[in-house]
């Protein structure tokens, strides 16, 4: 199969690219590193529309929502297409810790982090809405916790730094298996959480 992914040259996107490639599929990456910008929604949609799977991974404000909307229109009622939208587990919580104290969680006091969560909530609602318009394309919402990647080094400055981050290789393998095992039913949403936050 032919897989298009945005942001496939680092972090979870890189591991997702690798796992599909490992199983013999063709993966094409669209990221700034090779001259693409997901804010140019029309050109991304045009470039990925002939693929079988689109992994809507890279984040830039509401660009993921816009790409999903336009691609869904083109792929509507096409049983062979599959979209994996990458969101975040942050959408499932609204406190910072159990005492509602400020901890080193991503969105504290930061407009950028606030925008991030808001955009991801919009992405999840967009999939929910679109999934009721048509049986296909099939869509899966992936809501990972913070990944153990070079970019996130020191991002959560706690003594359990490695315990609260997920291994992107393991997560990619799990997501691949979920997709690959689709048959009578498929997974529309999968959320991960770190074992240790507090």
């Amino acid at each position, binding site marked *: 199969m032919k897989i298009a992914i945005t942001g496939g040259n680092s972090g979870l996107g890189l591991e997702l690219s690798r796992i599909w490639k490992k199983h013999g599929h063709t993966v094409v990456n669209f990221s700034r590193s090779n001259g693409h910008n997901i804010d140019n929604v029309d050109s991304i949609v045009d470039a990925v529309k002939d693929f079988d799977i689109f992994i809507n991974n890279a984040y830039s404000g509401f660009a993921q929502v816009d790409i999903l909307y336009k691609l869904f229109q083109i792929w509507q009622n096409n049983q062979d297409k599959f979209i994996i939208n990458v969101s975040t587990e942050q959408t499932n919580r609204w406190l910072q810790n159990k005492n509602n104290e400020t901890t080193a969680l991503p969105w504290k006091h930061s407009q950028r982090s606030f925008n991030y969560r808001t955009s991801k909530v919009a992405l999840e609602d967009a999939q929910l809405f679109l999934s009721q318009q048509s049986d296909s394309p099939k869509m899966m919402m992936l809501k990972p916790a913070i990944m153990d990647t070079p970019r996130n080094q020191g991002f959560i400055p706690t003594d359990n730094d490695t315990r609260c981050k997920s291994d992107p290789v393991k997560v990619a393998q799990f997501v691949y298996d979920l997709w690959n095992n689709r*048959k*009578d039913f498929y997974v529309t949403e999968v959320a*991960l959480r770190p074992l240790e936050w507090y």
Partner: protein
Amino acid sequence: MLKKLSIGITGTSKGLGLSLKQKFLSHGHEVLEFNRSNGYDINNPANIVEQVNDCDIFINNAYSGFAQVELLYALTQQWENIEHRYIINIGSERICRWNVAGLDWKDAPRGPAYRTHKLALSESVEYLYQQVAWPKLMLVNVGAMDTTPSAYWNEYRKNLVTMPCDQVSTLIYNSIDQRDQYFISELSLRPTNFYKDISK
């Protein structure tokens, strides 16, 4: 899973509960069952909470109005701050949509309040997750299972695509098995030909 685990499950007499019970037993774990047939009623959570005190995993499967929510609340309190305890809550894919496929909402199987009860369960999982570090809570939103229908399901099932119990319990088992640095906190499933079949 390397260690032998003790699992409490409600509603193991049929359907997904039965399949989950068999899955865990086949992997060498111990299962404690809570059914009406052996004297338990999920509307009386205290009895069940007492019995599962030493379990590693509790599967909140049987449905009865808001009883799942109250059971989840009671057990989360009981298990608060005990490490390596997990509560798996069986929700419904119906919370992932706001139409009742092809039916008037008043005719929905299990009554119009079913979605509301399952939505409350989902909300409780999210809320309680933010209150406690342990136990870890998981929500699995499933569709109708391919089990022997009870009378009120018959009409609805004519047009329904069901999910094989064995595949779903395998998926839940494999997801629980992922717990290490992270755990799977939510899974939603949908039949592959959902809208195609209901439009017939």
